[in-house]
């Protein structure tokens, strides 16, 4: 079985190529460098130059230095409102995500909480749920007209008007915060497990009371790590487009990301590329400041990090009687997370939208699934999505392998430059990047093709792939590769026969991560959408807007199930794999 997998990995590099030229790693490295340079800096340059065009200029081509777009972007009162919204939205969502994420991480990492395994499973399966899909679920639960929870509350308390509305800033904050709890959990678990718990024990031994220890030792030790997570997640929220898009447009609560979309796609009137670019540059600057802060705080965190001894296990706190309230809260959290999926499942099984009731059970049917699958647009979208996902994951991982090798093995300046380049997209908000790609290809024949989406996704997800592959390569002893070279293997052969098989688990993991995220992304496809390049995410949005609620729900359910089939086996496999290598 494992040999079959290695063979598959080995097939990634054709043998013939290997003997073609002597310094093949130089040539391939240079080609990749130029490609990455173009992928990353091309869109950014056009973004900046467009933002400096005169207001309302028809062309996106550079025509001098004109700051009128920035003047407009910063003229009150609209801008203050926009920035204020964005700030409240960001802080609120991050607060919720941190609160829930760190509580869960504490329960699973530091106590004998009984549902630990369930929490981990749930968190990892969550990768399969596109954030905008849960937003659609929440709309069905909380919309002021016939949202299921509103109907329930109206009936129970005999109210005239709906008490809750999904179309509001608080609802947006809650939904975004909840959707970020899994990643926050994972990051904070990392912070917890990097801490040396003996420092705490030392405080206890020296007479520190529990609260005093927490305040004087634990909190200061954790603070840089937690702050780093908070900053990183703030960056994520500022970039978030899909939830504000699904909810905020109707709610008329614009944030930076949806404003860029509105200006770029002419939701109102004609597109204003100049102004959109100016907002894009502002968002980019904010993101760069945040990533700078993030790097700073992770470095401080590193300083506190103590290498823990072998076989060291932190003492877990006994919850005792607190197991029950903890269980209740965690189960409530599960329910809240699953409710939007449940309502989507419900409405996908009915011919037209009905509030959940016993009576409606008799109408259950699979008709929406049949109808949806039969639509030509969906078939096209499915085909496109498969092409998109396969090519994005493969190209991005192939680039990541070359870039990581250059970064890890070659001590030249080229390696450093290419690493910096691939990391740059982490600091570039996806909506800004998608918009910049739109500008770059607007007048080219590529515009409106699937290829543009592929290019955008490859650039965006390469950063993740590079991080994954280069940390794997760093673990690999250089002599393993040297041994192949001295034995007569050219660079390509040593990559194919030695390096790639040895980092295969990480390659597979990265490939699947990118595939999943490419499939669930709405930001890029929606901004670059034409009739020709519709993918499942944008098709789902189109049906929803139509509106065909049962059809959209059915498609959403199918997407989530499909992604689960990708994600869950992978998670189980990699958990086993890391257990096994830890056991050795």
């Amino acid at each position, binding site marked *: 079985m494992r040999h079959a997998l*290695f063979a598959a990995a080995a097939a990634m590099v054709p043998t013939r190529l290997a*003997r073609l030229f*002597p*310094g093949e790693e130089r040539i391939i490295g240079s080609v990749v460098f130029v490609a990455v340079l173009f992928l990353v800096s091309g869109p950014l340059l056009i973004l900046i130059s467009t933002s400096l065009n005169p207001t309302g200029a028809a062309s996106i081509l550079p025509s001098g230095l004109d700051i009128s777009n920035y003047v407009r972007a910063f003229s009150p009162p609209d801008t203050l409102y926009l920035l204020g919204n964005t700030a409240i939205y960001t802080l609120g969502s991050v607060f919720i995500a941190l609160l829930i994420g760190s509580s869960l991480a504490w329960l699973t990492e530091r106590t004998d909480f009984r549902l630990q395994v369930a929490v981990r499973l749930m968190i990892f399966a969550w990768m399969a749920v596109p954030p905008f899909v849960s937003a659609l679920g929440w709309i069905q639960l909380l919309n002021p007209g016939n949202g299921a929870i509103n109907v329930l509350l109206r009936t129970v308390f005999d109210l005239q008007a709906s008490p809750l509305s999904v179309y509001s800033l608080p609802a947006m904050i809650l939904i975004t915060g909840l959707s970020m709890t899994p990643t926050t959990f994972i990051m904070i678990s990392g912070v917890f497990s990097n801490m040396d718990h003996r420092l705490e024990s030392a405080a206890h031994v020296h007479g520190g009371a529990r609260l005093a220890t927490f305040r004087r030792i634990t909190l200061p030790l954790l603070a840089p790590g937690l702050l780093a997570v908070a900053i990183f997640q703030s960056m994520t929220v500022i970039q978030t487009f899909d939830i504000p898009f699904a909810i905020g447009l109707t709610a008329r609560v614009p944030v930076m990301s949806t404003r860029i979309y509105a200006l770029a796609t002419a939701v109102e009137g004609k597109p204003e590329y100049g102004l959109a670019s100016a907002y894009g540059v502002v968002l980019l600057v904010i993101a760069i400041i945040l990533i700078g802060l993030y790097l700073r705080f992770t470095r401080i965190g590193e300083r506190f990090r103590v290498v823990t001894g072998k076989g060291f296990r932190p003492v877990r706190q006994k919850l005792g009687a607190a197991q029950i309230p903890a269980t209740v809260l965690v189960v409530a959290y599960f329910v809240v997370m699953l409710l939007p999926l449940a309502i989507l499942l419900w409405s996908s099984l009915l011919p037209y939208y009905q509030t959940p009731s016993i009576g409606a059970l008799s109408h259950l049917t699979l008709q929406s699934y049949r109808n949806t699958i039969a639509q030509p647009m969906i078939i096209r979208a499915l085909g496109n999505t498969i092409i998109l996902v396969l090519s994005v994951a493969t190209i991005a991982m192939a680039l990541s392998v070359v870039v990581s090798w250059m970064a890890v093995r070659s*001590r*030249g300046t080229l390696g450093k430059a290419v690493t910096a380049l691939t990391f740059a997209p982490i600091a570039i908000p996806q909506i800004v990047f998608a918009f910049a790609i739109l500008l770059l290809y607007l007048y080219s024949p590529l515009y409106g093709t699937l290829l543009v989406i592929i290019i955008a996704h490859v650039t965006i997800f390469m950063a993740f792939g590079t991080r994954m592959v280069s940390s794997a390569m760093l673990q690999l*002893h250089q*002599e*393993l590769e*040297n*041994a*192949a*070279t*001295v*034995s*007569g*293997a*050219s660079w390509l*052969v040593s990559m194919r*026969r*030695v390096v790639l*098989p*040895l980092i295969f688990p990480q390659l597979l993991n990265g490939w699947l991560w990118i595939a999943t995220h490419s499939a669930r992304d709405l930001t890029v496809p929606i901004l670059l959408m034409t009739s020709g390049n519709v993918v499942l995410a944008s098709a789902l949005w189109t049906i929803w807007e139509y509106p065909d609620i049962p059809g959209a729900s059915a498609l959403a359910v199918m997407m989530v199930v499909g992604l689960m089939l990708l994600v869950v086996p992978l998670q189980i496999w990699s958990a086993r794999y890391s257990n096994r290598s830890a056991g050795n």
Partner: protein
Amino acid sequence: MLVLRHLTKTYHGARPVVPSVRDVSLEIPRGSFFTLLGPSGCGKTTILHCIAGLETPDSGDIEIDGVAVFSGASGCNEPPHRRRLGMVFQSYAIWPHMSVFDNVAFPLQQQRPRLAARDIKARVMTALSLVRLEAVADKLAPFLSGGQQQRVALARALVHEPRLLLLDEPLSNLDAKLREEMRVELGRLVRQLGITTIFVTHDQAEALTMSDRIALIDAGRVVQQGAPHDIYYRPNSTFAARFVCGGNIVPGTVVSAPDMQRQAEIDTPFGRVACALPTGINAGDDVNLVVRPDSLRVCNGDAPVDGRPNFFHVDISDVSFMGDFIEGIALSGSTALRVRLDPHVQVQMPHAAVVEVIAQRCVVLPRKE
């Protein structure tokens, strides 16, 4: 025949910027066992990597069998996979995802024109039988013991009949007993095959027992070259004496002009020693006297000293039993000399004794402060 000429290498980004290899020139005759000996960090691995092509020197030339594989002047630089060498790495670098057979077959599979699978199989099995590992051919590498991994690495380095065999501290990861065995086996094997071998080690005992010739390296420079016997008995620097002979280094000053046989007297902290001076050292010079354990003879404490040159009173203490001999510290005033005692003679410690410094066996080196 391997020739290195004026090889220099500085690592990119090294802080502080000092060359790891400085102006190294060596000639290694075909079929010889040549050792690069030096303390850790002196540049041995770097020299080996330059020969293999894994690192590119800044300047100099490397020639194998009369053909340049690297030349700083002409820019010629044969890539490592074309140099037809075999190498055993310090970590062995056995590929853990392949079986023993596949590890050893790898160099043959890289040859062009392609070899027939049958030939590959036969040659791999021959190589495995050389290192007595035919029985584990199908095992995955991680299931081997340290000694077996080492032998797989050796088989892999030899299977394609390379022009040179490069060994980078191949014995240093083995435990003491196994190291002894492998030292003998390795020596026997390469001599039987007659392959030109460049062996890197920081262990002077390994170097002395195995090599035809030794190049002693310090801070990237070759400080002395010669047969093991030459280096052991005629170290040309305090560094060589300290590193290879492990003897006592006693500072002193020449107090009399050398006579016709270049005999002279040297003042040392434990007394005046009469011995021969090498040319270039004269009265008044500061010197180091190298006194190996075999240049000291321990006599009874009541042996007459007065009037006899090179006899000194000492107190012997701090003895450690080493099996075939006893090592002791002979104190004379504040100077300590390491001496060897007969393990069959029981003595009370501390013990007054007389030592004789056997002048012909001592080496006098200039001392630069």
